[in-house]
């Protein structure tokens, strides 16, 4: 396999975006990424689009050809990638693999979702379809419900309490203040988070990521080619993917996700790096407890220690490991298919000094962790500075 780099990124505003389709959002993000990369339109060999369900949200199947169609790139391969909330991360990974293999020289990986057409209870139903339909969904599971049970199990075993979970929400909202593309630029307090509406006991409204429209895109090229380009760039150090049982109840332990442990370990091995080499990380905080569990599963903290570390400020800017500087899913928003791609966009901006007010100092390695279902799919990436 050849080495691969990313040479341009694009991202729409995340939020409730009104009269626009996921196809238009993906097109906007892809155009921005191609412009930053300064590549010729005809150089694009293929497109991957991470998206959960244009079928349910927009009554559109076979969505992938729609993007090259709007970009004026008809006849190139365009592929839809679906892995629940990890669709975006997996679309980037498929793009990287296809360039690494030597098959393509320039690939645009996009992620998009238009969720706000439907009322909340319908969105909850649609998202629940990412769980096991027969043995979870038809019994009444929701994703807040599944992660509520993870939170309870974690609290019983390690004492991770409501205040620690709220600290994740407060921290990510604080980070999101400096991200103009985030859905929310609003600080919250621990008290407000803990006393908000109960969604699935013990998770409250502020433990949950919002329903969001948006898109993000990256341009992937061989590293040999990237090195010769003048613009911003980063190198793909490694990537890894793992899967586990569809049903949460089939796992021996629900205080962590084996998939994150496996994917992170493989990513570190492939890059020949240690967890202590990583300067900042974007993890999949679809729920506050998911961020804590991810940090423990990757190995930034021992099992059971991420909650108290978050409360102590170890995961903020300037802390031991800055986590979700973009605002995370919690504040930036969670347009399902776009989420994994937007994590990569944030790493790119940080490694190239393009993150504005939220720019971290002296960062060399950034990592992403994108989760699908109740952790049934995990995609991890590690990137390094290109200069």
């Amino acid at each position, binding site marked *: 396999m050849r080495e691969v780099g990313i040479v341009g990124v694009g991202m729409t505003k995340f939020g409730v975006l009104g009269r626009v389709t996921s196809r238009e959002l993906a097109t906007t993000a892809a155009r921005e990424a191609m412009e930053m990369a300064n590549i010729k339109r005809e150089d694009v060999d293929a497109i991957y689009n991470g998206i959960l369900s244009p079928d349910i949200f927009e009554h559109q199947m076979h969505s992938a050809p729609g993007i090259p169609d709007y970009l004026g790139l008809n006849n190139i391969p365009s592929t839809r990638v679906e892995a629940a909330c990890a669709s975006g991360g997996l679309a980037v990974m498929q793009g990287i693999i296809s360039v690494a293999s030597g098959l393509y020289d320039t690939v645009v990986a996009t992620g998009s979702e238009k969720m706000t057409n439907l009322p909340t209870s319908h969105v909850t139903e649609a998202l629940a379809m990412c769980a096991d339909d027969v*043995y979870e969904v038809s019994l009444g599971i929701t994703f807040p419900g599944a992660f509520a049970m993870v939170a309870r199990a974690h609290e019983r075993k390690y004492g991770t309490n409501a205040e620690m979970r709220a600290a994740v929400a407060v921290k990510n909202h604080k980070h999101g203040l400096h991200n103009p593309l985030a859905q929310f630029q609003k600080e919250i307090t621990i008290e407000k988070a803990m006393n908000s509406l109960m969604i*699935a006991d013990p998770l409250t409204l502020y433990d949950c990521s919002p329903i969001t429209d948006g898109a993000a895109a990256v341009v992937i090229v061989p590293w040999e080619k990237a090195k010769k380009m003048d613009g911003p760039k980063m190198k793909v150090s490694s990537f890894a993917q793992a899967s586990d049982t569809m049903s949460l109840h089939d796992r021996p332990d629900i205080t962590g996700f084996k998939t994150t442990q496996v994917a992170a370990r493989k990513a570190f091995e492939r890059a020949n790096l240690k967890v202590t080499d990583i300067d900042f990380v974007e993890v999949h905080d679809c729920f506050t407890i998911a961020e804590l569990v991810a940090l423990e599963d990757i190995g930034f903290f021992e099992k059971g220690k991420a909650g108290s570390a978050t409360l102590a400020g170890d995961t903020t800017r300037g802390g031991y490991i800055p986590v979700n500087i973009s605002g995370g899913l919690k504040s930036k928003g969670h347009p399902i298919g776009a989420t994994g791609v937007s994590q990569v966009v944030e790493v790119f901006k940080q490694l190239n000094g393009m993150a504005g007010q939220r720019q971290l100092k002296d960062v060399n390695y950034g990592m992403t962790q994108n989760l699908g279902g109740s952790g049934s799919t995990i995609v991890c990436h590690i990137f390094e500075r290109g200069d």
Partner: protein
Amino acid sequence: MIIMTRKLVAENWRLEKARYALVGNFCKKCLGYHFPKKQLCLRCKTSEHLEEYKFKHEGKLLEWTKIYDPAKGFDFAGPYYYCIVELEEGIKITTQLKYVTDEGRLKYGMKVKLVFRRLFSHGNEGLNTYGFKAVPVY
């Protein structure tokens, strides 16, 4: 409910044994249980020693939550308890937890029994879908 397939007789019919009778399988070689029914024993990697097995309706409560914000289709009965149960044979299932009169008395590992109840309906003209729910045994 936005998903058409939920309303079909076929979807319910093909799941009849698992959903209505808790039928899975048992491996005579490794003495392991599987639910739902697997095509091969996941430990022995063969179908040779598998036989049908009907699970007992008793187990223990491993985890639970109260869902206040249900998915479309489950919003007819207000907030409900949802749980993970380990059956006597050692396999786990998730389902709703009914007849919780005193939440404070729910305990990790407490005994529960399974009862046959309606899972959801499809309006006045549609099917009723039935299956098992758990009830705490205080």
